[in-house]
């Protein structure tokens, strides 16, 4: 009942009141405006004016209108909404990282470069690839980078290939990326069991023959399945001189279980904001590093972190004796083992030793971002991998897959399973049965809100109608999964008995369903 009942929270503009400020700043010592050419000077600046309490309350209240991993189970398929460990936020906030300037010379930012180098190696190891590039700022940009790398590679060997094959179960960014990279997209259908139809693939490969640059395939697929013929697929693709592009958004099912590199992938992107637990922030930031086989390394985006051979390692004096005279001596003593397990140079606090540096790969496809990528996202991912270790990463994917199969087992009688086989980290249902009863998948999703669960991904992938893609991740406990499944079963029963209840849902959210049609017809995009 806070004020206007038609509004959950006023906008900043509605809260604005002339003369208010939320923060003080030092004074200027001259009339700056008078020093600037009149034609360059700004007139009015129409920004909202608020007190500090206004700003604090506004955003605190708005935040409470959100559901999030910190408040609710959020089984959004293909998004891997897992725990975001708070320790990673603490690491991200360390001034030594947060205040590092991207244009500083390498010798002054060895700590940051060590983190990036460490992650490059970790990702290559986890995926079984030769090397990694951390430049891409999100999965989609990773796709662009990967496809451009393929393009550059093919050009380098004098091949003109203009087509990319994309299963029509693929995420929208796959075809969108292919065309951004200047390729024609040819769709290939999966067969009934969810695996790729090898005959269809063969036909496509033969039909488009020498123009096929690559097959862009998601593993596990967006159907939540591990394609059993993936090795043959890779062989067929390679046989036609094309490259295997892997969409690694679903890596959470595979860490420590299988290495895409071993299966024949040439390049793959990884969504650090999925498998490696970067908080999603309501839509980013994320990061989409790519990993590649050796033949593609020279084409990686720039910059790339390279390790110079550690020759002149300075002495490590007793850290304590030098204390008080110079902190650098202490730092110099910080010799340690880097994250691949190799001996690294000591901290280069005030020494001239430079172990890591940024380089442009010889045939690089160029830059994708202003500087070196979403560093803090990389930092969190590095910390996450260090916190889990090899065993932890394997346990993580094992638990993620077990959780998904448990949900499948508990719900299979109530909801139609899209593919009757064990799934990977996510399970795909179809709402056909409920639709026939008068409740569409959208209605089921909205009803879940009343039960306190964020809806899953719906109507994706497009190849299954009334699709519900549920990804519990390893973070949810059995108790939570059981409560979730109980709710889903109750909803299935409601769909049968009282479908209207679902069509009107949600009933217990801050808002009821919103009119998206008129929002698009007469767009109101600003105050």
């Amino acid at each position: 009942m806070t004020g206007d009942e038609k509004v959950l929270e006023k906008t900043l503009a509605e809260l604005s009141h002339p003369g208010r400020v939320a923060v003080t700043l030092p004074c200027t010592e001259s009339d700056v405006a008078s020093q600037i050419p009149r034609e360059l000077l700004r007139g009015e600046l129409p920004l909202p004016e608020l007190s500090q309490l206004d700003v604090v309350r506004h955003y605190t209240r708005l935040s409470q209108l959100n559901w999030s991993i910190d408040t609710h189970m959020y089984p959004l398929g293909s998004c891997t909404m897992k725990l975001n460990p708070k320790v990673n936020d603490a690491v991200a906030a360390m001034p030594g990282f947060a205040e590092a300037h991207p244009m500083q010379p390498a010798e002054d930012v060895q700590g940051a470069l060590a983190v990036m180098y460490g992650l490059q190696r970790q990702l290559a190891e986890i995926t079984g690839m030769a090397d990694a590039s951390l430049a891409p700022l999100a999965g989609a940009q990773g796709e662009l980078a990967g496809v451009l790398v393929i393009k550059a590679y093919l050009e380098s060997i004098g091949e003109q290939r203009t087509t990319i094959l994309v299963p029509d179960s693929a995420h929208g960014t796959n075809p969108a990326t292919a065309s951004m990279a200047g390729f024609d997209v040819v769709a290939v259908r999966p067969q009934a069991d969810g695996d790729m139809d090898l005959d269809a693939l063969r036909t496509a490969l033969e039909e488009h023959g020498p123009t096929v640059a690559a097959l862009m395939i998601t593993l596990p697929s967006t159907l939540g399945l591990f394609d059993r013929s993936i090795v043959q697929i890779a062989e067929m693709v390679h046989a036609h001189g094309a490259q295997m592009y892997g969409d690694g958004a679903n890596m959470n099912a595979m860490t420590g279980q299988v290495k895409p590199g071993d299966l024949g992938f040439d390049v793959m992107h990884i969504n650090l904001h999925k498998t490696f637990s970067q908080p999603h922030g309501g839509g980013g930031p994320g990061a989409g590093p790519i990993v590649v086989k050796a033949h593609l390394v020279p084409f990686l985006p720039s910059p790339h972190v390279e390790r110079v051979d550690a020759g002149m390692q300075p002495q490590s004096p007793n850290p304590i004796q030098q204390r008080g005279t110079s902190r650098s001596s202490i730092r110099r003593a910080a010799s340690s083992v880097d994250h691949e397990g190799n001996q690294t140079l000591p901290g280069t606090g005030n020494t001239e030793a430079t172990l890591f540096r940024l380089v442009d790969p010889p045939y690089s496809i160029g830059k994708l971002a202003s500087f070196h990528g979403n560093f803090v996202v990389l930092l969190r991912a590095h910390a996450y991998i260090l916190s889990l270790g090899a065993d932890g990463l394997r346990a993580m994917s094992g638990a993620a897959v077990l959780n998904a199969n448990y949900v499948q087992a508990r719900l299979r009688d109530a909801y139609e399973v899209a593919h009757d086989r064990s799934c990977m980290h996510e399970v795909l249902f179809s709402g056909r049965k409920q639709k026939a009863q008068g409740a569409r998948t959208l209605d089921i999703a909205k009803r879940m809100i009343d039960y306190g669960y964020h809806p899953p991904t719906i109507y994706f992938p497009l190849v299954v109608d009334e699709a519900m893609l549920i990804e519990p991740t390893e973070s949810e406990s059995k108790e939570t999964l059981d409560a979730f499944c109980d709710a889903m079963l109750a909803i299935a029963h409601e769909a049968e008995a009282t479908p209207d209840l679902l069509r009107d849902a949600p009933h217990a959210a801050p808002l009821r369903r919103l009119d998206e049609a008129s929002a698009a017809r007469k767009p109101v995009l600003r105050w």
Partner: protein
Amino acid sequence: MPAIESILTTQTRSDVTSEPVSPVSVDQHPYIPMTDADRAAMLAAIGVQSCDDLFTDIPEAYRRPPLALPDALSELELLVEMRRLAAQNRTAAEYACFLGAGAYRHFRPSIVDPLVMRGEFLTSYTPYQPEVSQGTLQTIFEFQSLVCDLTGMDVANAGMYDGASALAEACLMACAVTGRRRIAISERVHPNWVAVVQSYAHGRDIAVDVMPHGALAPTEAHACLAVAQPDFLGRMSLDAAAWGDSAHAAGALYVVAVDPISLGLYRPPSQYGADIVVAEGQSLGVPLSFGGPWVGLFACREKYLRQMPGRIVGETVDLDGKRGYVLTLQTREQHIRRERATSNICTSQQLSALAASVYLAALGPQGLRRVAELCYERAHYAADRIGAIAGFEVERDEPFFQEFVVRTPRAAAEINRALIERGIIGGLDLSDAPRDRLLVCATEMNSRVEIDAFADALAGIGGAR
């Protein structure tokens, strides 16, 4: 970094190598709640013997490969190790800093972090379910509005990856709008941004013409003319309006990249003909963080709305007539339009956009103008002090905002090296032989006393042989 850290670290690492560090068996890792008992019960419910049975779709030979990674670090050890690495960076946290060149150190009000880092903002996904995502959706609507207020443009999107990719997308958008396949861009745009435009353009096989500052002459072949104001060297051009006219005369779009802080003091691009405005949002309350995550600002004229890339939030009502916000105009986007989408962008940089919103809300018009004025004042004070040093010359042929070029009496790299030993991060080494040049930046974070110390240091170093 402190003795204690380094020392602890060495031990940490030896722990790692000598013995399992994880104090609990892996099924008790804090990130993975599943216990042995849970596992057994769940496997039974599924009707399989072991977890491995769930991975049989993976060809036998490839299952459970070795993973050459060190054992897990406990949280305490992780923090020690990360502090050790952080301490290896010489940053503005401990050094005076006069480096800008596309990444600017500004004051970040204390209210930004506690609000932005609230779990409900931090750990929510892209707002696909509006009924339970109004927090994020309204902040995006407000972000779009603030970007419009700031740039003077009609419409803005929810944000792009960063300033450089925003510029690249703007140029591609211009190609889509005009149906042309050449991009004209000023040589004075940040070289990294030009490079990103080239990467993106190369994808679509679009040509990029980098034009000399003196001769920004787009032709009928060009989809757009892209310029930066201030430019890479901090200069504010008086020709910005004329460039716009030349672009429009050629039937090309006028794309302007701005520094958002400068808009507190300088007139917005909407007033000199811009069709698309992009900017790096980092200056608006986002930490430097070695280059990211930041956020790209993207605004344009109403008529180009439907060719705009990225997410857009619109206002609407729910069934009870209550105001609410939703993702809208999605037919532009990849998940609907697929290979015909305006861009492939999906996950963007929402949290950084939120930080920028909180920053602008906190400063308001008075605050933003004050920051811009302080930057101008400190930078010009620095230019005066440095210009007065024998052997140093400040390039003053054009007006500048918070950055300027200094000709140095000896190799810029040597000077920077000498400066760092004196606790100062110097300017950007622009040296293009035979000239030695530094690009120097000063903002409200550089006090006069600090600037004096900087000048004194340069004087000391400059002469030295």
